């Protein structure tokens, strides 16, 4: 289909791949512990995720061999496909465990709201890099109408599922990427002037106490059953009791005595914090930060506006999910069902994140030559 080119190897972004492998290894060590039920072997969940990682790494090889600029067009095709899939899932598939809906593909249950986030980033980047709005004039309200629409369609579909956490992620992505642009003062003022008072008045005056409670319950339907505070408290205890050096691999009591809910999915990092302590957390966060910073570097060195926008959006996609998840685990945010990318168990989220990183590698490889990489 295509000729193998040696330059694929010389230009390959080994740094990103290496850091990805580091983080994956930590995630697998943690998953082994969080799903362990005794004995010398891992749980079926562990092997399933391992398999997903292998699929993911193979996908990276495929992705980097294509020029990312293909996505300017293909992004819209994917967008239409994912909207149809979302509509199908929202209206025809029953919920699992209250919030998420999956499509059973036999070998794998697809959660279409995960790739939807990635595709939105691609489509927004494609739109912003081609919309011919000049930098001198800046963006007016009308210029933002189309990107807002592009976001609202999947937002409503995911909101209906109902998965408010993921739906809000779409808004966060829209805002993050729009902040890259030069906005006209009038546009900024009118956006702030409408959204902030509506949110403020809405929350404080229009909603009654029980309605607010209902919204909080809506954010996490499972949490209400088993008492919200309980989950967060247990998570805080887990992380806190890890202290400086942690309790050691497989020795975390909070996790293994079943105090921790969702300990291999949303609360995976609590297990890490408990077993590896502050030291382990610093190592993990260091790697994670480095990965994101490398992504930012990729954005800055991208060869064109589309690559730049997309790289930035992808970094933001991973970053915001990570921050929301970590804040939730450490009791700084209410419990919403947002996973820690690469670290929480779940095939859809994992593959989405790995594909994002594959695209970042592709952008990096085709970016402006930075220093000595190219000397022919």
């Amino acid at each position, binding site marked *: 289909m295509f000729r193998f080119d040696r330059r694929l190897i010389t230009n390959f972004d080994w740094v990103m791949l290496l850091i990805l492998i580091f983080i994956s290894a930590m995630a697998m060590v943690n998953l082994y512990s969080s799903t362990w039920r005794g004995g010398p072997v891992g749980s079926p969940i562990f092997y399933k995720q391992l398999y997903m990682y292998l699929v993911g790494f193979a996908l990276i090889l495929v992705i980097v061999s294509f020029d990312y600029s293909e996505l300017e067009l293909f992004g819209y095709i994917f967008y239409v496909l994912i909207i149809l899939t979302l509509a199908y899932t929202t209206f025809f598939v029953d919920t699992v465990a209250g919030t998420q809906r999956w499509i059973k593909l036999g070998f794998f249950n697809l959660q279409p709201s995960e790739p939807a986030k990635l595709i939105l980033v691609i489509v927004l980047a494609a739109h912003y890099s081609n919309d011919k709005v000049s*930098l001198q004039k800046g963006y007016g309200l009308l210029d933002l109408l189309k990107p807002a629409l592009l976001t609202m369609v999947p937002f409503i579909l995911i909101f209906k599922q109902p998965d408010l956490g993921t739906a809000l992620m779409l808004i966060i992505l829209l805002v993050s990427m729009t*902040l890259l642009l030069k906005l006209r003062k009038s546009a900024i003022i009118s956006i702030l002037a409408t959204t902030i008072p509506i949110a403020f008045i809405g929350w404080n005056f229009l909603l009654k106490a029980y309605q607010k409670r209902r919204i909080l319950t809506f954010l996490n339907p499972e949490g209400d059953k088993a008492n919200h505070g309980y989950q967060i408290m247990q998570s805080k205890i887990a992380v*806190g009791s890890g202290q400086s050096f942690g309790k050691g691999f*497989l020795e975390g009591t909070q996790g293994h005595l079943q105090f921790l809910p969702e300990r291999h999915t949303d609360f995976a990092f609590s297990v890490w914090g408990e077993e590896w302590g502050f030291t382990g957390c610093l190592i993990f*966060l260091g790697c994670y930060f480095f990965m994101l910073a490398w992504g930012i570097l990729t954005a*800055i060195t991208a060869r064109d506006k589309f690559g730049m926008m997309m790289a930035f959006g992808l970094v933001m996609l991973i970053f915001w999910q990570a921050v929301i998840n970590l804040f939730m685990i450490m009791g700084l945010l209410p419990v919403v069902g947002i996973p820690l990318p690469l670290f929480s168990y779940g095939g859809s989220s994992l593959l989405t994140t790995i594909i994002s990183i594959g695209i970042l590698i592709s952008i990096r490889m085709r970016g402006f030559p930075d220093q000595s990489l190219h000397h022919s």
Partner: protein
Amino acid sequence: MKNLRKRFIQEDIKLDEISPPTPSHGGTTHLSDQDEGDLDFFKVRIMYLSSVLIIFFVLVIARLWYLQIQNGEYFDSLAYNNRVRSQEILAPRGNIFDRNNQEVVTNRPSFNVVWMRKNKKIDNSFLEIMAKILHVKVEDLLVRIRKNAHSPLHVPIILAEDIDWKTLAYVENKKPELPGIRIEVVPLRTYHFGDLASHLIGYLGQINEKELKKRKEEGYRPGDLIGKSGLEKLEQTTLRGEKGTSYSEVNAKGYEQRSLQDTEALPGNDIQLTIDMELQKIAENAMNAANKAGAVVVVEVNTGRLLTLASTPGLPLTKFVGGIPNAVWKSILDNPYKPLRNKIVQEHYPPGSTYKLITSLAGLAEGMITPDTIIFCPGHYKLGNRTYGCWKKSGHGPVNLNKAIAESCDVYFYSLGQRLGVDKLAEYASLFGLGHKTGIEMEHEQSGLVPSTSWKRRRYNEKWHEGETLSVAIGQGANNTTPLQICMMTSVVANGGTLYQPKVIEEIRDPDGKPIKKFTPQIKNKIVGQAKNLQQIRKGMISAVNDKHGTGKIVKFEKMIVAGKTGTAQVVRLKQYRHLHEDDIPYKYRDHAWFVCFAPAINPEIAVTVLVEHGLHGGSGAGPIARLVLEQYFAERLKEVDTMSFVSLPDFSEETLVNPQNNKIKVN
């Protein structure tokens, strides 16, 4: 694709150049000076916005510092000292009752002794004490401990399962002196009728990976017990109930400090069977006592309720509780009587002479014979250059329908079958439900086989031979039926043409005893307009039991009229065995024995079918079991002195005048 490759190649050319991308490099982005200015603007923007990354990572690390370093010891003490642990409470499975509401399967608490180690060292003196208390060898305890050697300390090790009351009381008493020893309560199945009706009830086992996957969304977890066969499996969802949660304070080593409020487990729904366990007991025990492998089926002829469903040898249900020992499982697999097979529906046998009831109805309904048609039986029947023998070599002489059924004359049915043809026979067999699954609540039901010319063409791509029709007409050859099908066939004859759906569940009740689902009779098929003809067949069956030369005399009662029919299903036709004395034929080559009957002959209530694998003769091999069942079911009435109406022989004189031409069969 072509386009993609083109771009890819162009891209590579670009990568080789040192200069920034030129307008020629393809893609949709056209770069000009202004665009480069744009890129610079965005670079700066991205750098500004990247500060959020730093801000938030600093916040995360600060929070971690606060939790792990500043308050680490506090949280550690919380983790160590108390903490509410939530644990699943297993829901008691639903009970199973028989039709008289006798308990058949219920739950009992079983007590396990578990041990929480303080460290990984093994204290020998402690083990010796425990071994003495639990009446086991120290080595056995060591084996159990070694199995869990890799587990961390807070995972309890089960030292003994299902201990008796004496040991339990002793352990409870001595608990303060036995550090780390705890009693764990687990509900287990208990079978009040031992292993009776084992194929119907089924057994439980630990859920396997496949089942877990399939039922992932129903809240199952590894280690859960789940129905593996029989009703336990088919009605798993009904019986299961809902798990509860118990919250208790434990310390980090897993020691329970105090229990808090629980959300209670919801017991599963109860099932009331249509089975009469006393009748089942008589039938199954009689089969077992005589070391007979086979099946006994009893059905209420006017409703389809099954009163007995016995398949012998049964499964050792009681041994499946808490995991079946390998040796027992192996002995089940090696047993030549195949206990794992549910012979009621999973095995099929040629129906033998019981099939003659169908040949009779086909003959009457199609007008081939009247009850008075006489056929002469010389002891054999010639077709072409082959001779087909009657079981009675000396011959029955002149035979009418009544005698043909009563004495099971083969020649009569050869002749009738030949005239009807195999496809007509198949048509009537199908009306009685043969060749179709009954749809009873049992797994892996076989549909049996009703041979026909089209079947043979389909299956073997061969022409049907007329000689085969003769075999089919007397229930041999390719004919295959399950004991349940034969029982339903008998009930159709008994009730005058209605094929009911056989059922075993009388009622499903919620834990409060409120009925959720109730039994209602369900008609599968009705043979219309054949009441008089079926009456003639019943008359023949009455003669088979009550006449001097009848084959079914074994169920003749002084105080009650019973109607019956014997059957022998040929296993092999090998000449080498035919001349042997019966007892010398190897077990697996002996014929199967059938016995079908219903009672009372007038206004029948129940139909009984007995099949004994390799039991040789219907009358002697299977008949005695049927008799025991009848004696049990009619015990009260057989004791009464004044039962004349119950006993009196009917007068059939009028019915013999029926003109069969007018009776056409209709199927609902």
